[in-house]
């Protein structure tokens, strides 16, 4: 379970998030909807520890994340899919998915990879191709697969449907909906309700750095 309490974030002395509170239980898919510049990415990055100088509390299953350095959060079971995918273009799809497992030294790499391939069979079908040879939508699927490699307790998906063709976006919705069964807490952001409306259990609306539950 992810618990964010009174989170306040400033970047270069400009307040971005003002006292954000949210709770996402395991097995729930939460939507974070807001316009560009509302603070969606800042909230995701704060949970991932990628922004310094934040105030408030962020806890995962009761464990205070403030005490965990950014890279340790992947070890704690948090997977992050950034908006711009950030795959390594020269590596194959499978290598891209495996990179976090190499970095964290996971013991069950093969088993986890099999599970990911079962959840997203498309990724297996282009596993041997270089990431640079994929379309933007396919890259989103691979970035989701990579986030799933470490995301065993919490998945942070930043604008997963942005710039994706409708058919692939529909496929992404299916995959994310399928994750509910795995007791994973999912937080996904979107600029409108187009895709998340039918998908989410909880809806948070973010506006100028303030979050309210809808």
């Amino acid at each position, binding site marked *: 379970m992810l618990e964010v309490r009174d989170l306040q974030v400033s970047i270069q002395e400009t307040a971005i998030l003002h006292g954000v509170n949210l709770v996402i239980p395991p097995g729930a898919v939460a939507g974070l909807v807001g316009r560009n510049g509302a603070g969606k990415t800042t909230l995701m990055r704060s949970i*991932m*520890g*990628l922004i310094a100088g934040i105030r408030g509390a962020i806890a995962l299953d009761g464990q205070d994340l403030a005490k965990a*350095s*950014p*890279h*340790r*959060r*992947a*070890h704690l079971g948090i997977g*992050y899919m*950034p908006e711009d995918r*950030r795959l*390594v273009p020269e590596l194959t799809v499978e290598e891209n998915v495996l*990179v*976090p497992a*190499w*970095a*964290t030294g996971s013991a069950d790499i093969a088993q986890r990879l099999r599970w990911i391939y079962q959840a997203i069979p498309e990724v297996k079908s282009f596993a041997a191709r270089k990431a640079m040879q994929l379309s933007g939508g396919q890259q989103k699927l691979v970035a989701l697969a*990579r986030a799933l490699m*470490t995301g065993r307790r919490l998945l942070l998906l930043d604008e997963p449907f942005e710039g994706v063709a409708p058919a692939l976006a529909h496929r992404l919705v299916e995959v994310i909906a399928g994750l509910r069964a795995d007791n994973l807490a999912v937080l996904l952001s979107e600029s409108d309700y187009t895709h998340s409306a039918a998908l989410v259990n909880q809806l948070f609306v973010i506006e100028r750095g303030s979050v309210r539950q809808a």
Partner: protein
Amino acid sequence: MRGPAVAIGLPFLLFCGLIAAGFLMPGWLRFITLIALAKGLVVLSLMLLMRAGLVSFGQGLYYGLGAYAAGLGVNLLKVTEALALLALGVAVAGAVAWVLGFLLTRYREIFFAMLSLAFSMILYGLLVKSSALGSTDGFNLPTPTFLGFAFAGTAARHALFVLTASVAFAAALLLHRYLGSTRGYLGEAIRENEIRVEYLGASVRGALHVKYVLSAALAGAGGALTAVATGHIDPDLAYWTTSGEFVFVAILSGTGSVAAPFLGSFVFEMIRTYAFAYSPNTWQMVVGATMLLVIIFMPGGLWSLFRRRPRLVTRS
């Protein structure tokens, strides 16, 4: 793709050829090659940092520390074994880097470059003011023993060449294996995107700290070997122009292979030697012009000469 026999066998053959050549070449060339190998270790240490996107303008700090540790090992601790002096140089440089690494790994780009330069100049300042260490004159080292054997004259010079070439070969081989490992590749990953490295689960500062200590240990080895080879050390080893020369050679060499720093270092020493012989008043201009040509025509450094060019797709 190269087979494993070629990947392992070819460097080993080159190493054997270098050792054999050391016995055949004239004394002046052997000395230049030896110095090029020792300084090549420092350039190799810079290459390790450059692959992670860091350029140190203060590698003279560890080059000087390695040399002074070896020198003081002989004069104060009465250590005479060359390998022990080498280990001392590596250990002192590595230990200092481990402490400084906590601060330096927080900085990037020009801030890292300038801070590393500042630390090397602090060492230079301390050495210059220290009369017990010979101040600006430095001090001399006697010829060490090699695995317990006390060689003299030409035999000692041959032994020193074999030792330096062996250390350079072993360091290059180990670093090659390291750079091919997950931890090694982290350097490129950090250079590309630090945030990505963090959210994928690896510590950027931890990885850079390890690389910084490894780099210092290599530079310390280069310093200790130079001290033993020349039989003399002075504060100029830690001066900023010495550090600048290493960066110069690193750019000249390129970062494509662990062999590149040694090739670049040898080419640099040869250019400098001949430029100095034929044009003693303007030799720096010759070296500068060479650098200019390399940057214009070989932006990837000398090593780009050995890179395979992509095959052109031709229509039948």
